[in-house]
């Protein structure tokens, strides 16, 4: 039986990808950020996940305004890397896991999630930066990846409650897959940041840390935070944190925290990072 063995939350700031690609990741500016991921890189080397369900959002890179899926699941064999305006990142293509991806897609639709199934897609920094943070610069990514793209750009984005419920349904789907697989789920994006308008640059250390506390909790209060609270407290792009709730919902009622790290700033953004293990 496949099993979700851990959940990872992580920011996916594009500049972190640039730092890795240009070898600046241990300079004065980026050093403290990457140091926070050292523990996780070691841990991942031991964990050796077979598959990561990687929850992220496309930043108007593959999808334009002509088609905006709320939840899109990538069932392809392989995903290319988007050119986001300065050429594609020099990272390996992403290998999918069509057997598990299709199984999850089918199970989710039976559970009344209105998924969009994707068989061709390029992925942007939202997906590749977390891979770089966890795995550094391998010639080939050490696991297969199922991209789960969430619309957090055009409003309304899905509610926190819906995201949590999707996580629960993903857990059920993975556990009904017959093959033995070590599966992780990553929720990416956030934490507090605002990239637009006169309020650009807003950060909220206190709120972000309360959010991390809530993820560690064995109650599910965090799923009921409203969009307006994310927007007021964490900046217009802080809404990306709803994607962490898909990860958290997939871990069950109780979790154990293995690692937690927070740093301000990276470019415009607060960097947060948490590793959780199901403890039910």
């Amino acid at each position, binding site marked *: 039986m496949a099993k979700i063995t851990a959940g990872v939350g992580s920011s996916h700031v594009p500049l972190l990808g640039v730092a890795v690609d240009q070898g600046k990741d241990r300079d004065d500016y980026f050093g403290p950020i990457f140091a926070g991921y050292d523990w996780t890189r070691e841990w991942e080397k031991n964990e050796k996940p077979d598959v990561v369900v990687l929850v992220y959002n496309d930043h*108007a890179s593959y999808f334009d305004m002509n088609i905006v899926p709320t939840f899109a699941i990538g069932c392809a064999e392989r995903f290319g890397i988007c*050119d986001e305006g*300065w050429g594609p990142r020099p990272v390996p293509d992403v290998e999918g896991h069509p057997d598990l991806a299709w199984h999850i897609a089918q199970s989710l639709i039976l559970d009344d999630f209105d998924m969009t199934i994707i068989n061709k897609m390029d992925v942007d920094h939202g997906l590749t930066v977390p891979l770089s943070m966890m795995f550094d610069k391998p010639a080939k990514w050490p696991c297969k990846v199922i991209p789960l793209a969430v619309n957090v750009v055009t409003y309304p984005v899905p509610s926190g409650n819906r995201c949590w419920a999707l996580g629960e349904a993903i857990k059920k789907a993975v556990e009904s897959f017959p093959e033995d697989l070590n599966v992780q789920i990553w929720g990416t994006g956030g934490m507090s940041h605002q990239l637009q308008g006169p309020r*650009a640059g*807003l950060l909220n250390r206190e709120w972000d840390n309360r959010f991390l506390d809530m993820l560690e909790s064995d109650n599910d*209060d965090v799923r009921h*935070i409203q969009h307006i609270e994310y927007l*007021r407290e964490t900046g217009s792009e802080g809404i990306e944190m709803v994607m962490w709730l898909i990860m958290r919902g997939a871990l069950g009622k109780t979790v154990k925290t293995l690692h937690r790290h927070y740093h301000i*700033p990276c470019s415009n953004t607060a960097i947060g990072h948490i590793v959780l293990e199901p403890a039910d």
Partner: protein
Amino acid sequence: MAEKPTQNIHEYLAEFEDIPGTRVYTAVRARKGYWINQFAMSMMQPENRERFKADQRAYLDEWDISEEAKQALLRRDYNALLDMGGNVYFLSKLFSADGIPFAEACSTMTDMTWPEYRQMMLDGGRSPEGNRSIRENLAAAAAAAQNKA
């Protein structure tokens, strides 16, 4: 923190307009800015970037964009573009084509210079205090004025 989500779409959307210095990318904005954003996405193809750089005005004239928006694009006035329905993730393809760091482009939307903005970020970023609600800010200002009088 743990309320049930608002279910009325009108109330849900109205709240978004109460956030200072922020344009939430709603349907109204998405529709208004459709072609601005589609133009911006075209900057993801190297051929288009080259054609745009060779003659910006000529390239813009190929798109169904108002003269006002073309002018705003030419002068990289991102706040004006947000008002016209531009979205920052789309517009960022233009920052990238210009070779400008994301944070520098963000600073141009604030009342700070790029060095000032960068310093603010290094110092912990903009505080949410006084930046949460236009309504609350007005109420606080009115209360302060009354106290003075």
